[in-house]
């Protein structure tokens, strides 16, 4: 047993560090490190830089233009990128639909869609959840009826993240309402967001942000060639996709960065004439989350190491999702508590323009309450933490 990186892995880490130091734009890194909102243009710019370097998609296999890195290299990259303040990868194209297209799409689909995802030219979003289909996703109702060479799609998707920027949406639709099991009547469609009949309506979340949308489909014509794999087999592809959503699910690198920010804030804030970080109760709360994060880091490395040995990423990912999101939430909570009443000011107009301005108190306090409220989503999305516990009890514990 050895927790150290091999010399080759250390050399790789140095290469990643050098690249990030030289190529990651300072303005973007500044936003990430200080908790400011990263704009769509920033994400596109960074994806372009990664694409130029040949690192457009670290997790893809080489044949599709990926790096072919192994799980440990991917982990090193994620850690270093997070520490340097690189924006998170918007997962919908690179990490979600692309693996499905690679595994189940035909050659024509692979040639048509993958290059645009890799270069960042095409922004993708997800059409999974519906108002009546959340945790019970397979009960989805959006209909796709065959009409010659097309499907006619009608229905409503929701919790669609960043769809206001999207060129394409991948959707689960019901093609056979009479199938004996609801999982058996679902198909997987790729839909051009410019298609007539699509309406995107913003959902403003409690932090004032416009991150999610409702997407309405009204007689939207989708060519049959945009279907992935077989008709009514979409549930299989959907489950495959959810498996891939889990890479880097622990978010250890980003949480380490946020822990550093928490400590900086708690060092600046004063209590009883001393820095807050020296207050015994607050110090204990920071220590608790730091210790939990240390444990998660090793648990994550154990999962990666099992993956490297070609043991498929299994239901153990649910542990990483639960602990990872709990830690993210705690960090955001402690940062808000650290600034006390200066967490209160909130200038809605600046949020609507994309970021929160400091209107009173220290600059670093401006976004902390909004971030705290926003982070409540993490235990709800991507399979709620209760669903993750169901997965553990059924798939691991056999209950």
């Amino acid at each position, binding site marked *: *047993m050895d927790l150290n990186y091999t010399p080759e892995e250390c050399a790789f880490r140095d290469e990643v560090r050098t690249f990030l130091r030289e190529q990651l734009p300072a303005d973007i890194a500044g936003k990430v490190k200080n908790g400011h909102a990263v704009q769509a243009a920033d994400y596109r710019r960074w994806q372009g830089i990664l694409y130029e370097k040949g690192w457009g998609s670290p997790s893809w296999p080489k044949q599709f233009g990926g790096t072919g890195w192994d799980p440990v290299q991917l982990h090193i990259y994620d850690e270093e990128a997070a520490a340097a303040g690189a924006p998170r990868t918007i997962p919908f194209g690179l990490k979600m639909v692309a693996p499905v297209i690679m595994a189940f799409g035909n050659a024509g689909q692979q040639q048509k869609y993958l290059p645009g995802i890799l270069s960042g030219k095409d922004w993708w979003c997800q059409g999974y959840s519906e108002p009546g289909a959340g945790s019970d996703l397979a009960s989805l109702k959006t209909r796709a009826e065959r009409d010659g060479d097309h499907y006619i799609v009608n229905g409503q998707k929701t919790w669609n993240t960043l769809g206001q920027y999207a060129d394409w949406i991948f959707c689960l639709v019901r093609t056979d309402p009479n199938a004996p099991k609801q999982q058996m009547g679902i198909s997987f469609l790729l839909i051009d967001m410019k298609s007539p009949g699509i309406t995107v309506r913003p959902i403003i979340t409690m932090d004032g942000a416009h991150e999610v949308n409702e997407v309405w489909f009204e007689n939207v014509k989708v060519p049959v060639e945009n279907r992935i794999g077989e008709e009514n087999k979409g549930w299989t592809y959907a489950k495959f996709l959810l498996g891939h959503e889990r890479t880097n699910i622990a978010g250890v690198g980003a949480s380490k960065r946020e822990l550093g920010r928490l400590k900086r804030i708690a060092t600046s804030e004063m209590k009883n004439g001393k820095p807050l970080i*020296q207050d015994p109760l607050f*110090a204990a709360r920071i220590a608790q989350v730091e210790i*939990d994060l240390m*444990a*998660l880091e090793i648990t994550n490395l154990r999962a990666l*190491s099992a993956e490297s040995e070609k043991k498929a990423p299994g239901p153990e990912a649910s542990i990483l999702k639960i602990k990872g999101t709990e830690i993210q939430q705690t960090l955001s909570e402690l940062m808000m508590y650290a600034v006390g009443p200066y967490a209160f000011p909130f200038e809605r107009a600046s949020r609507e323009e994309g970021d929160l301005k400091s209107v009173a108190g220290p600059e670093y306090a401006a976004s902390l309450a909004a971030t705290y409220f926003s982070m409540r989503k993490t235990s709800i999305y991507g399979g709620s933490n209760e669903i993750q516990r169901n997965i553990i*009890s059924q798939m691991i514990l056999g209950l």
Partner: protein
Amino acid sequence: MDFNFTEEQQLLADTVRRFVRDNYTFEQRREILETSAGWSRETWNELAGLGLTALNVPEEHGGLNAGPVDTMLVMNVLGEGLVLEPFLAAAVLAPALITRLDDPKAAGALLPSIAAGEKIVVVAHQEPQSRGELANVATRAQTSGDSYVIDGLKSVITHGGIADEFLVTARSSGKPADADGISVFRIAPGTAGMHVKSFRTIDGQQAADIEFKGVKVPASALVGAADKAFGAIEGAHEIALSAICAEAVGIMEAINAATLDYTKNRKQFGQPIGKFQALQHRMADMFIQAEQAKSMSYLAAIRCVEDDATERRRSLSAAKVVIGQAGRYIGQNAIQLHGGMGMTDELMVSHHFKRLTLIDLTFGDADFHTQQFIRVTQAG
């Protein structure tokens, strides 16, 4: 990065596991518990025969010099079986301390018989006021001609009642909490002025309070340099802390397996109680906590011999916090999920729970190590 064990390590773990499964069933353990000694010399000899007493002894003294990862694997199994024999005290802590005191004469006198399982040497360090703080030694050692005179109380020394010899820590200079000024002495039980009060502990193990009233020992009883033992004491306790974390992990996995088994078989309202989601989610959380604890036990085993003191101390304290908290969560909920049966003396789960609980209170509890973690992190 590599989480695999060597073939030798696998073999060691398998051998010990087979021994414990064959020779340390619930009934066999109960028989040992009911003897007046409360432990079995015969079993101890068998464990020695498997090489366990030699694991932490250097090769030049007849040992295997195996290291903390091997110790971890052994402790996992001994935890699972709730083995009552003094492996942690006499085969981990004592040889680790002697080795670190860098005293060839004492090492030559003690280590070969420890390795062979012939002699039970017990470290008498803990005191009523020390509560995990390793430098907090109030027991005094005053020079008197060619001798030292020892006065003080060592409290709840595990396996103190069966020791063939003690390694007693005492303050030869400085104030009660100073790291400097602590020395270690070899003292045999029965030395004039020494009173050993033995008792059972609630986890079925045994311990003793050892009182020293004007106990006179020759200067030759000093092990290592006078006043300079703290580094060795800390180092040895770090090895032992890593080991006890592994013992806890073995217990947690056994408790979780037993709870799972129970909830799959116990029927109420016409179905196994494991079908109820409230219980499923509880067990999912118990599983998560055991995995996190296992991760930290790995970290402790790797870092307990790390040269960088900040990194070493941080990792060990973090590990003890996670193990203490996970142990409490898993133990308490296992009893809850077993219902009335969990309260009885008749199932292994209550015995596991008791040992797991005392592990949190050993070598500093989760609160102590949270404070220690903060201290080390802020100083580093």
